[in-house]
């Protein structure tokens, strides 16, 4: 037999650490089991940079108020109503206090980063980014006396009639062991890095997906919980996907492989055909649709094509654009059919109507007479060198999760609340975020429900 703790936290990201700290502050003994090695700790939190919290007035780093009601309306819009209103409103209310609470745990804010001015009022940015935030939370947790184990792969959960008893753990050195605890907080994320699982819904196409986070986000805890009778929430087939550079590594390329350039050019598939209106809406509002669109194209690959006049209109990119003095030369480098690409560009150029370009609004630069149309920011691609970024779907997170109550307590398939199991973060994000996304919301869900779960788990353990 292994040791016994009041609260066992499985996971090592923002939600897990907020839960661990809150449980420890509530007087509980706490163990955190992080499945990744120390460097890769924290799941998707490593790659985040901000959090969306409601606030009634401007602060040192936020340029204006963001009321609970406005937050709710934004959430309603991005999810298309696929949200639990009671839970969501509770989260939004609690988010106000998180702005201060998280600072008390050592996290530091800064004004919005260069290139993200549109978020300056609503989102608080972590000084140094998500890993800096994690480092601060880990230091605080360890200072408070929370035990942390890395490379801690949980192989099984012992659950009896909705009651957590123990976790079986495979340590890299000491082998199998069992850890008992009075309460469980599951904060171990989704299954976005589990290609086999993704294939159940996406088929062989999933082999061409790139995963934006670490290879450790395999959803094994989520699967165990659902297998042992916890009620599921969220569409299992859906994931958040953006178009990222096709040259990015298979895992953990993070945010720097993204492309902001779709609105400045056209996007073609491997047959050199356009397939969607590149000018549909303002960036970054339509940022997240392009992953799904590219996933639906043959071989899950597409190419953003633009010319040298727009190079400085977007953030510098990790991978340089591929360049050609003529469209045919560019096509050759992209292994596209030169004649087909020339035809697509020529037809597009001929369809561009005159207008006044302004990328900050839905301007009047549009095409006429081609399908699909480009409804805004359409300008001729005619100034060499011609440039291109190859893109593939980059999977950020999955929506499937465990259903919870306002207290972050898991609900069992029969609708009864679990006696001692709580969930926080991406593993239960589907309760609030049934689909879609808005910047910083994942971290709000993590911190708010992490803190609630930790508090409630400690309360249960101390009773």
């Amino acid at each position: 037999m292994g040791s016994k703790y009041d609260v066992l936290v499985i996971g090592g990201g923002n939600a897990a650490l907020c839960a661990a700290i809150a449980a420890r502050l509530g007087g509980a003994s706490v163990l955190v089991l992080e499945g990744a090695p120390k460097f890769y700790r924290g799941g998707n939190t490593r790659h985040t940079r901000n959090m969306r919290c409601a606030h009634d007035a401007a602060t040192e780093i936020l340029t204006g108020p963001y009321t609970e009601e406005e937050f709710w309306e934004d959430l309603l819009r991005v999810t298309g109503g696929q949200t639990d209103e009671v839970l969501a409103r509770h989260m939004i209310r609690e988010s106000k206090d998180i702005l201060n609470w998280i600072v008390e745990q050592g996290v530091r804010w800064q004004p919005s980063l260069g290139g993200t001015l549109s978020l300056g009022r609503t989102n608080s940015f972590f000084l140094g980014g998500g890993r800096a935030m994690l480092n601060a939370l880990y230091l605080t947790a360890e200072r408070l006396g929370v035990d942390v184990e890395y490379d801690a792969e949980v192989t099984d959960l012992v659950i009896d009639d909705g009651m957590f008893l123990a976790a079986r753990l495979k340590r890299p050195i000491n082998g199998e062991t069992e850890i008992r605890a009075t309460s469980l907080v599951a904060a171990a994320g989704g299954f976005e890095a589990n290609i086999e699982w993704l294939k159940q819904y996406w088929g062989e196409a999933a082999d061409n997906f790139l995963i934006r986070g670490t290879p450790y986000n395999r959803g094994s805890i989520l699967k165990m919980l659902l297998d042992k009778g916890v009620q599921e929430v969220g569409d299992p087939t859906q994931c958040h996907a953006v178009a990222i550079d096709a040259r990015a590594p298979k895992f953990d390329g993070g945010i720097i492989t993204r492309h902001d350039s779709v609105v400045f050019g056209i996007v073609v598939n491997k047959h050199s055909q356009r397939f969607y209106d590149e000018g549909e809406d303002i960036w970054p509002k339509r940022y997240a649709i392009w992953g799904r669109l590219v996933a639906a194209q043959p071989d899950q690959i597409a190419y953003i094509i633009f010319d040298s006049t727009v190079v400085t209109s977007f953030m510098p990119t990790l991978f340089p654009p591929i360049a050609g003095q003529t469209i045919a030369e560019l096509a050759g480098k992209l292994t596209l059919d030169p004649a087909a690409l020339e035809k697509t560009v020529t037809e597009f150029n001929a369809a561009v109507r005159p207008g006044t370009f302004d990328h900050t609004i839905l301007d009047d630069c549009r095409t006429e007479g081609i399908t699909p149309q480009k409804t805004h920011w359409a300008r001729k691609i005619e100034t060499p060198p011609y440039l291109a970024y190859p893109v593939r779907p980059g999977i950020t997170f999955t929506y499937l999760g465990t259903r919870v109550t306002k207290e972050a307590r898991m609900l069992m398939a029969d609708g009864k609340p679990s006696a001692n199991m709580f969930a926080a973060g991406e593993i239960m994000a589907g309760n609030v975020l049934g689909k879609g996304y808005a910047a910083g919301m994942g971290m709000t869900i993590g911190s708010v429900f992490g803190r609630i779960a930790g508090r409630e788990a400690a309360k249960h353990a101390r009773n």
Partner: protein
Amino acid sequence: MHGTRILDEADRLMTVCNSCRYCEGLCAVFPAMEMRRAFSDGDLNYLANLCHSCGACYVDCQFSPPHEFNVNVPQTLAVARAESYAAYAWPQALSGAFARNGLVISIVAALSMAAFILGFAALNDRSVLFGVHTGPGAFYKLMPHNAMAALFSAAFLYAILALVMSVRAFWRDIGTPIGGRADGGSIFQAIRDAGELRYLHGGGVGCYNEDDTPTDRRKLFHHLTFYGFLLCFAATSVATLYHYLLGREAPYPWWDLPVVLGTLGGIGLVVGPIGLLVAKSRRAPELLDETSYGMDVGFTAMLFLTGFTGMLLLLLRETAAMGPLLALHLGAVFALFITMPYGKFVHGIYRFAALVRYAQERRSEAGS
């Protein structure tokens, strides 16, 4: 691309960092980077010298090793910085002094101290060298004041000349921004930023040293060293004024201004360098440029030696040890002066120039 491996690597990293920007709140390097989309040699040397090596961007980076992007900005910029010192050194014939700097400085220091001892012994009777001298002019019984002043002025002026020529080459290479010359406001801003070591701060929590817990120890020891150095310099300057304007000759009583300044400065120059050397020996190797270990240690050790021999001289100046100690102290100071343009001392000069440039860029950005 850039002619040196390290500048190629710095360019690669700045391209990675410029597409991320999470670290822009930590220090001046990243905001300066964001003002550019491509990086010349001069740009990279500018960024390298702007970096204070606090280590925060390494600890905060999701792409630092073992990640395959292998982003290690502090170490890369430390190597680039050390190589930039040699690249801008004047005269270029002496740039090789940076490559094996620890050795060069040790040899110069040893030779310099030996020369003073031998010189004192050759020019003075045994009874004078080991005699007890007190009262005004005591030091000058061993070495005439004018000889001392001439020798040290020459060494000091040479150091100034070499430093000015070096930093001029640096200043030209990093490119003058629109607006031309350095303006008063930017210089004042840079003096403040350098004076408080604003960017040796991990963005507010302190530096990263031996582990992932930040502290402000290096900043404290650097302050002791730097302000100790300035106080000692002030002590010498005041004594020079006393000598020429008031006709008052050293040594001065313990309560007099040159001695008070020198004593406070000397304490700083003993405690500060020891603290810095200990901190360096403990620092995580992945944050350091280990190839310039000799250079870093050489200069810090010279400062310590200067402070230590000076303090000994103060304590024992009324004993028979004064003569040899004076020779040692003068030897140490002389070696410090002539090696200044060819050792770690230059970091302060280049970094200050980089801070002026950064202040200019910020002002022109705000103005545009």
